[in-house]
């Protein structure tokens, strides 16, 4: 029996002890056997939607079972029962920090089946690229800011969220909604850019560049930040390819793959930008790649503002565009067409196609099987977050529990996209 200790010390009151006087079970050493603990889904670092059952040897993870699905909202089943236009609000809720890219991806998938790819007005393509790149910036700003906060750098988080808010406000001016924009339509966009958009965006970009300088000064050579990020959760190039990783995670590991360069779409061939590629594939490289992509997005946006032409914001094709409001109210033909368009939906010819764009996290694809009616027969989303999360178990293996936080942060798992 251990010698009685000073029980008045609060430190010695261990939770669950039956009797504070009885100190017979005080252990001087940690138990040597493995321990299974549960992390999430209600855990701030798990973004509230993922559960990990960890088997740990002390602090070291020897086995983990990652369980997604807590945010499953049946995107695919709902899409099968909605018209092609009605799916846009659902795509907003896939990756909710970059909804515009999802909108564009879905619109491009339907346009591919209708043979509209490449036939859209130039202004539509430019507007889509502008809103996509703004969305990519909000995505990266959120990812870096939130990861920094989880490592204790709260200032960086507040600065980046400030910059993100400027972009959200601008996107709100464009689409009318701060977060779930539903701005893109099949064959065009819902409405033209607002007045003075180019001055507003230029001003926002200038301010964002200043914020980025501040945050980079704070993080890049910060000892705590580097110690927590460098060498943590590394993937080799071969591993990144075999696990299907795309986007910043794969590029950090040295995979030179960006849909915008390798399978160019829209007007990306007309603008100049670089694709940053890392070498070590660890969390710090992922951070650097994302920072560089932010700068490249700013570069693309500035070029787009210079090059954007005037013109219509909807393709002139009666299969996808609504008749002008004036005609809808005054002629019976246009009213019928309007009614059929809204109620029956856009009629997409039978066929199947896979279309992919570069989302905030990498290749975001939509695979649609159409049966000739106004609703998709099958709609599948290739969500990068789901593929990336499947590597989490491999990434956290043999790391400490505390390392889950930066690894998870830099995977940038977006619950809505991962769980569909």
């Amino acid at each position, binding site marked *: 029996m251990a010698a009685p200790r000073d029980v008045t010390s609060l430190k010695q009151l261990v939770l669950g002890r*039956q009797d504070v006087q009885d100190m017979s079970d005080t252990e001087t050493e940690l138990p040597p056997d493995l321990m299974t603990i549960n992390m999430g889904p209600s855990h701030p670092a798990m973004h509230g939607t993922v559960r990990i059952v960890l088997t740990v040897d002390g602090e070291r993870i020897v086995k983990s079972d990652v369980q997604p699905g807590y945010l499953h909202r049946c995107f695919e089943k709902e899409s099968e029962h909605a018209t092609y236009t009605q799916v846009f609000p659902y795509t907003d809720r896939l990756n909710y920090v970059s909804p515009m890219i999802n909108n564009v991806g879905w619109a491009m998938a339907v346009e591919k089946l209708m043979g509209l790819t490449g036939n859209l007005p130039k202004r539509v393509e430019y507007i889509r690229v502008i809103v996509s790149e703004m969305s990519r910036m909000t995505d990266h700003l959120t990812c870096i800011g939130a990861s920094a906060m989880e490592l204790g750098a709260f200032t960086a988080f507040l600065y980046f969220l400030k910059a993100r808010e400027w972009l959200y406000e601008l996107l709100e001016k464009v689409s009318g909604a701060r977060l779930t924009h539903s701005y893109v339509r099949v064959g065009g966009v819902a409405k033209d850019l607002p007045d003075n958009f180019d001055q507003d965006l230029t001003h926002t970009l200038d301010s964002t560049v200043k914020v980025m300088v501040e945050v980079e000064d704070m993080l890049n050579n910060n000892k705590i930040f580097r110690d927590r990020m460098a060498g943590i959760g590394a993937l080799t190039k*071969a591993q990144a390819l075999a696990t299907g990783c795309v986007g910043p995670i794969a590029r950090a590991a040295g995979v030179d793959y960006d849909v915008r360069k*390798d399978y160019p779409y829209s007007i990306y061939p007309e603008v100049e930008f670089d694709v940053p590629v890392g070498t070590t594939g660890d969390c710090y490289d992922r951070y650097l790649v994302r920072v560089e992509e932010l700068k490249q997005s700013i570069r693309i946006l500035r070029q787009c503002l210079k090059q954007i032409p005037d013109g219509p914001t909807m393709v002139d094709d009666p299969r996808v565009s609504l008749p002008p409001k004036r005609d809808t109210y005054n002629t019976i033909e246009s009213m019928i067409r309007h009614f059929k368009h809204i109620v029956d939906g856009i009629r997409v010819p039978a066929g199947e*196609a896979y279309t992919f764009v570069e989302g905030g996290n990498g290749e975001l*694809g939509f695979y649609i099987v159409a049966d*000739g009616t106004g609703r998709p027969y099958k709609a599948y989303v290739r969500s990068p977050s789901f593929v990336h999360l*499947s590597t989490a178990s491999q990434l956290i293996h043999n790391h400490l529990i505390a390392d889950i936080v930066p690894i998870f942060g830099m995977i940038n798992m977006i619950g809505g996209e991962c*769980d569909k």
Partner: protein
Amino acid sequence: MAQKVLDALKANHASAIELTESLFGDEIAWVKRDSLVAVATWLRDEPTMQFDSPVFVTVIDRLDWHPTGVPLSAHWSDESGKPRFEVCYQLRSSTHRYRIRLKVAVPEQDARCASLAGIWSAFDWQEREAFDMYGITFDGHPDMRRIYMYDEFVGYPLRKDYPKEKRQPLVRRDDLPINPIKAPGAPHGDR
């Protein structure tokens, strides 16, 4: 561009390939179910192919398939007696920038398909998703469990005969005894 892949597949695996077609710029090869692993391994290891990067796995349920107009796929030109499910594997070659979709027809009574998770580890979770949503069992998969739904879930939600309105909430059973709180003084050995 990837027509080369289809030609090479037909040349090297004539007996395994049922049909090849190109739809909207996507190359599709219908593979016999028994030969899937052999074809996939060849696609990964052959130097002129090098399909090193998996893209996605999904399943198409053709239960309600009544297309208006002429079906584009030659596989569906005669509609009688076609198996209900199609398992689709989309692959990408990062070296040659080829893309191809392998399709395997799977009948309803024998909803099984060979697993490719051993060839590309990305298919581990994606095949689990296909199993969860469509009930296709992948033979040779290391961990064939549901992934989005809970284990108690009955049925496969993305099958066409699963009604959209159906609800299966996972509720706590109140008639089960709750863990009794340990009486004071009882030995507390377990941690």
